């Protein structure tokens, strides 16, 4: 193999691995000796540095890994901040999905479907103005019935909850009709 190809394989391997990869593993993948691979790793490292590329090759105790170059940190942070800020936890997303499709629905019903307590998720969603109290169930205890808000529609680009995609029966394999 040409040096160029070997370097590309190393690059691809380190990229996909994410975690540090040992020189030993690299050599066994390439079926090459350490003494032949090491100079190439050195060349790669220098080359990324020399060009002040966005990524750099870092080494620690015979393990190699790509990282971003520290001087670009501010940009990366800027790129990521909105994305991270926008996150809904999986629990919140799931709770929101159930409320959206089953509304109006009580907390107890959401919890029965999810199989876990959901008060934190519900508080979060209320706080983010994605759900609200829409009514009370007309039974003993008069538990709160939750539904989605106008903001919810706005965020998801819907003009009405009727626009939520139909869930095909087969997707769930058995469509639960006995919850209401």
């Amino acid at each position, binding site marked *: 193999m040409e040096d160029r190809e070997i370097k590309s394989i190393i690059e691809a391997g380190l990229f996909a691995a994410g975690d540090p990869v040992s020189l030993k593993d690299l050599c066994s993948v390439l079926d090459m000796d350490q003494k032949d691979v090491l100079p190439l790793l050195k060349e790669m490292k220098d080359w990324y540095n020399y060009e002040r590329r966005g990524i750099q090759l870092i080494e620690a105790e015979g393990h190699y890994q790509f990282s971003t170059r520290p001087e670009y940190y501010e940009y990366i942070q800027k790129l990521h901040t909105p994305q991270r800020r926008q996150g*809904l936890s999986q629990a919140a997303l799931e709770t929101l999905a159930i409320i959206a499709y089953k509304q109006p629905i009580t907390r107890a019903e959401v919890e029965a479907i999810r199989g876990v307590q959901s008060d934190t998720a519900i508080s979060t969603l209320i706080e983010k103005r994605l759900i609200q109290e829409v009514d009370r169930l007309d039974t003993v205890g008069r538990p709160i019935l939750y539904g989605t808000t106008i903001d919810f529609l706005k965020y998801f680009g819907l003009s009405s909850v009727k626009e939520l995609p139909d869930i095909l029966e087969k997707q769930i394999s058995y469509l639960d009709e006995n919850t209401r």
Partner: protein
Amino acid sequence: MPYSVKLEVFEGPFDLLFHLIEKNEVDIYDIPIADITRQYLEYLDELRFFDIEVASEFLVMAATLLHIKSKMLLPGKEKAEQEEVDPRQQLVERLIEYKKYKDVTGELRKREEVCQKRLFREPFPLGDYDAHDPFVPDVDVSDLCNAFVQAMRRYINLYNDDYNLRKSLEKERISLTDRINHIKNIMRRVGRISFKGLVEGCATRANVVVTFLALLELVKGRKIVIEQAFNFADIIIQKRDSKGRK
């Protein structure tokens, strides 16, 4: 054994027809309909259908083929009239349409194979973020849809079909039901009681709250009326008569 192909490999009647046309090396615009129909039926004979819906689709095509065949055998009475339409035409058109996408499928398969060899990496964990920024979800409707499907699936797997949500609710509130019944009994027997008298026997604050809720339920259900002479005075609870009056 040239016919050792099983039906399962065919995606549908069109797929099978194409197989026959290719195998016989005939012109798609001039299908020897009698021949192809015979071979098509032979295939069907060899098969045991497990999926009745798939089977019916193959059978509908068989009927279509027989119909075309019969049309072609008939001495055309109207043949003299204007230009005559080939009975095979509609079928051929649909076949060609289908073939277009079948070809595309091959191309997509190739691309799929290559693209599956691309690997991606996980996003980097970054430091804390400012929670006070305005909220805009990074999920879309399809995420919502998927989350719902996942949740329902898990729920159904977990509890099977006949788990009743409402049941769990009622169990939780059973003391309130008891309380309502209790008040109803008092009303039936006495017809009138003060709130103080009602809550005197309550051991906990929760019990008082439940009693109060029970009263509200009964008021709403027009079973009782309540009166209070002035602020902080004792509340008098009275039974309503059947005409809805005191």
